[in-house]
């Protein structure tokens, strides 16, 4: 059997490259009344890339984040992430994170669960975990990775927009020394039109650089880090 041709991508993933590689058709249009600090729901496909143009690039899960305004000075993120593994074993992380209405969306209190489901939907009870925690009042230098999906939408498209923080990944793993900053405006061409996108970048310990891509209305359209991308779904 002839070996399948595989061309190395060679470059970092961007929204334009996602279109070339089949990871994106087009981003959904943002409602006129979208407010980053209001109530909204963003659902993302989790797409991965092996680094070849022709093969191994696929959706492996989804992430839904729902923002609800809570009491004064706080808001709540409802979260549901599914990652489908080989043989259709699915990891579901679900729960809520109460955040401060500060630049980092610093977590105040959270209740999350992780469970594994078989292809028939049956939960494997032996593998489930729960995580219920609260941060102290003084913890304002910490950001959760999912919380940043919210926080970045409230930042100005300005070189002065720069945040320093410690990352609490998955609301459980501490990764200190992070920085998120505005990088540039980037014209994405699709169907003959050029859409301006705005890019923030984040780097720090324990992660490959993240790039957050937003439209003019400050809606987060895609988050790309090395070989994985969260792509806003229709």
């Amino acid at each position: 059997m002839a070996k399948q041709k595989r061309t190395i991508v060679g470059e970092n993933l961007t929204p334009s490259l996602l279109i070339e590689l089949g990871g994106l058709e087009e981003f959904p249009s943002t409602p006129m009344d979208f407010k980053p600090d209001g109530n909204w729901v963003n659902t993302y496909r989790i797409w991965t890339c092996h680094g070849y143009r022709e093969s191994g690039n696929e959706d492996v899960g989804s992430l839904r984040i729902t923002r609800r305004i809570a009491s004064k000075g706080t808001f709540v993120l409802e979260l549901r992430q599914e990652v489908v593994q080989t043989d259709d074993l699915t990891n579901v992380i679900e729960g809520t994170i109460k955040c401060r209405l500060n630049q980092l969306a610093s977590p105040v209190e959270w209740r999350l669960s992780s469970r594994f489901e078989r292809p028939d939907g049956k939960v494997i009870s032996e593998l489930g975990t729960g995580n219920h925690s609260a941060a102290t009042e003084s913890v304002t230098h910490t950001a959760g990775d999912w919380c940043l999906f919210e926080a970045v939408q409230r930042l100005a498209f300005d070189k002065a927009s720069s945040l320093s923080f410690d990352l609490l990944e998955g609301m459980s793993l501490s990764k200190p020394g992070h920085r998120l900053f505005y990088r540039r405006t980037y014209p994405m061409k699709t169907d003959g039109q050029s859409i301006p996108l705005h890019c923030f970048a984040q780097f720090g310990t324990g992660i490959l650089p993240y790039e957050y891509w937003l439209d003019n209305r400050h809606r987060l359209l895609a988050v790309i880090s090395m070989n994985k991308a969260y792509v806003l779904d229709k």
Partner: protein
Amino acid sequence: MHKNATERSPDHLVSRRNFVKLGGAAVALLSDGVLTKRALAGRQDRKPRPGNIVLIYTDQQHIDTIAAGGCRHVRTPALDRISTSGMSFAQSYTANPVCSPARASVFTGRTSCETSVYKNGIAIRPDIPNLGQWFSQQTDYETFYAGKWHLPRTYTSRIPGFKVINTGIGGFGYLCDTAMSRACEGFIENRSKSKPFLLVASFMQPHDICEWLRLNMNNPGELRYPQLADQLPELPENFDFDRNEPESTKKRRLGNEPFKGKWDKEHWRYYRWSYYRHIEHLDAEIGRILTALDRRGLTKDTLIVLTSDHGEGMGHHQMVRKSSFYDEAVRVPLLLCWPGHIAEDKSDRVNLTSGMDIMSTLCDYAGIRPPTNMIGVSLRPILEGGSGASREFIVSEGNTNTGRMLRTQDFKYIKYVDDPVEQLFDMKNDPGEIRNLVSDSHYAPTLAAHRRLLGQHEARLDVAADIPHAEFWRKRG
């Protein structure tokens, strides 16, 4: 040639062997279900054994990637903790610097050409038991597996001898390691403390550096994030390479992304910075498992072993990935800790160890004999402060059975099939493997001695059927 399964099977049955040792009383007790396999094992060996065993297996981890071991470019609290709570081996070598062959050797204690796994994607020869099968037969440890297997399927819910609790996702450590460590966390937190277990947590990271290489092959000509300029690690001292290497080494280098993409030194340094971030990602996921053991109060009674299938080029000799016999690809971390039993915060820089030793070592700690014909040896005497006979040499085999590396205390000898270029390095005075001594007449006796040792090693192997180049190596014995 190997014996067939029928001839070997009596050795693999715990009941028969122990029945012979214990006599008729054991038969009666076993039939009543009173005398357990654990008790039988206890009769053989009364050394203490850990309540649980966790084998953490990483993928493509360069040995110098642990902060506690002296690496100043990474933050690795979990790896540091395992390292300082126990013992590390500085002269630790993989049995084969390629994924599947290395894994087969770790899980059987045998060489690649014995297990049949001479390249990626091949199953272990059926008459050789793997760690899970052996422990299931011989001990009361329940055996569990999470993550990458690759013998032959990379990710699968069916692994002989193990209950698979998590499969992972094809090729994506950045995502699947998180799900895998969460599954291990759940397993540890929900499991009854009275039931001993052997858990293999087989991570994909830092193997995602392969995806990184494909997504960064083209030299961008400028640093993608200028903010990182002052954070990029320097190039290794042995960044340069000998132009008179074996052909397969030359081909491998030229076929890799840095040469295709015409990297400049800054891009090489960005690659090294990125590799360290992969390590930190891995470290955090390992930390989740350690924390779960703490929360369940299992840490003190759990033997933790950490190693990797092979290393990573990291720019040494301008290499990336694996497959070569230079130390960056063939030397791997090996850490073991069991509080109160294994010396703490100790690094052994004398003993040569092999991935094949893990099977024998775990059998020793479980109080059972290893399977027959093992090449690997137990490290327990060394770990527990005994003198532990330092072996004369270890051998690593190469991908597709085309090469051999023989490492003695002072030298490394490398030979490939049908390639006149051999390599001999003085590892004490030239640890970067810069100067090939093969043509230096002063080292002719050393070269001859290493060739002879390799021949002796080859002569004792029980090589599987249909292994390419088997005859070439057999003749050297």
